[in-house]
């Protein structure tokens, strides 16, 4: 038992307890709900800050609770989990502010914010999971807590999207569980270990290990939206904007991608995975997803659907970086976990602002919107250019390392995938920017009724501005200590024993 046994539990509790209390609050208890949400989010930020400081100084944080004979529930803060937990904690705080503004007059807010907090609890549990069984438990919890958020509006479309989501993710969860049980039967352990714990099974169980790998990746690939398991994601766009932002930037797709990282590095170990020959097919699937998502995004007129297909493409960069199986590409993949989250949440916040303030849902309705909502569109512009990989934004740093990693690993074909993806990104983002900034509005926009002729409410305006600014800073100051890039280097140095 470590010195700070209770800290990972406290991090979980900081969102779970407010979530459970919020369920019991009446609808009209707005201030109490806001106070609970904000204090939970702020406490979590402080706790995570403390953990970052501790881990970088060699401190161990581990909670171990008995679960099944021979299997514990383990929560552990290591370098990799900190990367994900920091992202989810910071973005939860920002999304909470946004959601408060967005759902100001909506019904069922207590239910929404209750599940919202539980969803973050599950995400943090995934990040902190110290073994595969803990990971699977929180992974399933995430499915169950995000479903009510997707169907929140209660429309037929929302219910159908929720059903599709539930069926896909439960099916993925079943595959993941099957792979986990099979693996446990072979190894007798499920503890995440640096450079993996299955090497002892080689060469006798090669085929079993390959099949288990496929099961695990297929189970995780549903949430990571790898083609052809991605269909639920564009349909889930019916959810309110804060949920879309959370699904795409923090919780669901990231949980899948993070799981793939865990399986390759802490279950199999990169050397065993390479020996089994499973990394190249995974890289090919990721590359297909990168291109397919971008091509599909080109044809979408619905702004959120376009962003959804863009997520399918962009999240696969993470898988691609990991599967290329080299240290530099790993840095690129890991850092994109954070960078994509920051840029994509900006884009979804902006899409939400356009919908909430002006009723704009389609790209074809965006002519001249930059005049009416310049700050929102400025944030959108930064996010879009970041996605295209334009310097000095965060996306450039990710693509730089992915490209270098591909060259270093002798997989030059990845360069063409990156170039093709950048081109396609430009093809589906630049027309939006052109419409917004350079076209004449089709009609007079409704006048603003906010103080100082603000384009929208503060709670909706500040979050995208903040995340857009962070997207710029993450690229511009990528080489500073404690930046996501530096942290990704640190993780890679541990994984590759450098």
């Amino acid at each position, binding site marked *: 038992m470590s010195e700070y046994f209770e800290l990972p539990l406290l991090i979980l509790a900081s969102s779970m307890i407010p979530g459970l209390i919020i369920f019991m609050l009446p609808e009209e208890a707005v201030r109490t709900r806001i106070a609970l949400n904000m204090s939970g989010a702020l406490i979590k930020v402080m706790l995570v800050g403390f953990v970052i400081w501790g881990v970088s100084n060699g401190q161990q944080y581990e909670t171990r609770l008995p679960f099944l004979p021979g299997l514990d529930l383990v929560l552990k803060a290591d370098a990799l989990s900190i990367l994900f937990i920091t992202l989810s904690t910071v973005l939860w705080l920002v999304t909470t502010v946004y959601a408060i503004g967005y759902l100001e007059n909506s019904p069922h807010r207590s239910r929404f914010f209750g599940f919202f907090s539980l969803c973050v609890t599950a995400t943090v549990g995934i990040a902190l999971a110290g073994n595969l069984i803990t990971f699977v438990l929180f992974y399933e919890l995430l499915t169950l807590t995000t479903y009510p958020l997707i169907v929140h509006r209660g429309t037929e479309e929302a219910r159908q999207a929720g059903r*599709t989501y539930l*069926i*896909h993710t439960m*099916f993925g969860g079943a595959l993941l569980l099957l792979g986990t049980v099979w693996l446990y039967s072979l190894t007798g352990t499920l503890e995440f270990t640096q450079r993996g714990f299955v090497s002892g099974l080689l060469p006798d169980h*090669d*085929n079993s290990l*390959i*099949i288990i790998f*496929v*099961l695990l990746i*297929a189970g995780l690939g549903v949430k990571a939206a790898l083609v*052809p*398991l*991605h*269909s639920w994601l*564009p*349909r889930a766009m019916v959810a309110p904007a804060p949920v879309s932002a959370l699904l795409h930037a923090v919780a669901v797709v990231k949980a899948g991608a993070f799981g793939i990282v865990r399986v390759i590095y802490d279950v199999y170990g990169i050397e065993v995975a390479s020996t*089994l*020959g*499973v990394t190249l*097919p995974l890289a090919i699937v990721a590359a297909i997803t990168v291109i397919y998502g971008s*091509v*599909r995004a080109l*044809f979408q007129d619905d702004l959120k659907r376009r962003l959804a297909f863009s997520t399918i493409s962009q999240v696969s960069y993470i898988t691609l970086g990991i599967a290329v199986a*080299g240290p*530099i590409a790993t*840095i690129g993949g890991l850092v994109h976990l954070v960078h994509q989250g920051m840029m994509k949440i900006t884009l979804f916040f902006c899409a939400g602002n356009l919908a909430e303030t002006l009723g704009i849902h389609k790209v074809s309705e965006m002519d001249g919107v930059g*005049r009416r909502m*310049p700050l929102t569109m400025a944030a959108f512009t930064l996010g879009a*250019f970041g996605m295209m*990989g*334009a*310097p*000095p934004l965060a996306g450039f*740093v990710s*693509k*730089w390392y992915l*490209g*270098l990693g591909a*060259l*270093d690993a002798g997989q030059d074909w990845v*360069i063409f995938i990156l*170039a093709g993806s*950048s*081109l396609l990104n*430009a093809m589906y983002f*630049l027309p939006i920017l052109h419409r917004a900034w*350079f076209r004449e509005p089709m009609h007079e926009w409704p006048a603003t009724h906010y103080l100082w002729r603000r384009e929208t409410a503060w709670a909706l305006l500040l979050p995208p501005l903040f995340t857009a600014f962070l997207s710029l800073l993450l*690229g*511009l*100051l*990528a*080489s*500073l200590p404690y930046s996501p890039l*530096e942290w990704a*280097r640190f993780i*890679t*140095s541990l994984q*590759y024993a*450098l």
Partner: protein
Amino acid sequence: MTITESLLLLTPGLPLLLAAPWLRRVVPRFEYVAILPALLLLIFAEQTRVDLPWLLLGSGIGFVEQTPLLLSMALLLWLPAAFSLSVRLQRSDGSLSSEITNRRYSTFFLLTLSGYLGTILAMDVVGFFTFSTLMGYSFYGLLINGGNSNRKRAGRVYLYFIIAADLLLFEAALIAVVATGNLSFSAVRDANLSINMVRDVNLNFEVVRAALISSSHNVTYLSLVIIGFALKAGFWPLYFWLPMTFRAATPPAALLIGGVPVAIALLGLVRWLPLGDITLPLAGMIIQFSGAAAILFSLLYALILRELKTLPTQLTLLTTGLFTVALGVGLSKPDLWQQYGHLAYFYIVFMSLALALLTAVIAWRQDGNLSTDKSMEPTEVRVMWIEHVSEMIVRRIRAMGMETLPRLRASSLATAQNYLHVPVWKKALQNAELILQRWSFAITLLVLLGVIFVLVVMVG
């Protein structure tokens, strides 16, 4: 921080800050204030370099031997442009539409200026790439702002070219890192060094040029850099955006075409290529040939199209052709480049100033001032020469009685059009998506079985 270092940071930094409209409102005469740090730098600075290891992937800017010359060019070019902007702002009719257009124009003006000054001061590949990207996209905004269909088409073509160029230069920058050996992880591991080695990526121009001399990737790098900057500068035969933009841009923007995208692309070639250090006779010869062809083409262009408005394009093609010949010579005979290479900077400066002057004179003759919003040719949409040439070939062959080729071409085009027709693709993908949604379990299981089968066969 010394005064020079502060001025170095302020030179691209101040216009970047002033691009924010709310900041501009509190700074009177912002169009001149933005240029002020560059002027002060030119007057007071000593040769120095500022390393910024915290910036981006580790960057640096500096005031080196050629900087005063390039900054002088910048001032001579941007002061009239600022004056033109100033006149434009003063003549605004006060309507909301004109206010919005002017506000946007000022923002793009300042962003382009920041990118431009940044490229001049950048001391490394990544820094140069970053500033030139900022400049390129902002210049697009400057080109099409408040424009007619002609201007928008010109802007669109220009945008295609800079996107393609940036992709190529990004790949070239990656190759530069590989060439410098900064990122060889196997070497890091063998030498038992730390992963922190990769943090110290040094992509200063001198380091990159020196590393490329012995690198096996130098021809790939060279090709990517030359094609990348040729796209940006509008070299023959990749010059399609040039005549369109010269014709369609407003005079203040047209004034900057020669000095901004074209001149900075030439500067990029001089900075990025290991000229004077490397001997590549074959590549040099090919480049000289293309330069000579460009000169010939520009002369033919001048003879065929004796119009005043095509003069800037002709002159650009001629000067960039001459520059290409010089590049080729530099690659074939590095000793000659070592001896005369510094003249390339003077050439760039004079070329950009001459082009700006020529554009200004033409605009003056047409409209009587430099601040009008009218483009040189507001309505006519020109067909590109490549479209003319292909049409001419088809006509000629048809006249010779060879009907097969046009027919074949027509049928192939029709087939290709069927495939390329977006709604067909869209429909196919939409159907595929529906099938995926409807049969997700079956397809997933099928894919899983397929993957497992392939993997087992591969391992077996």
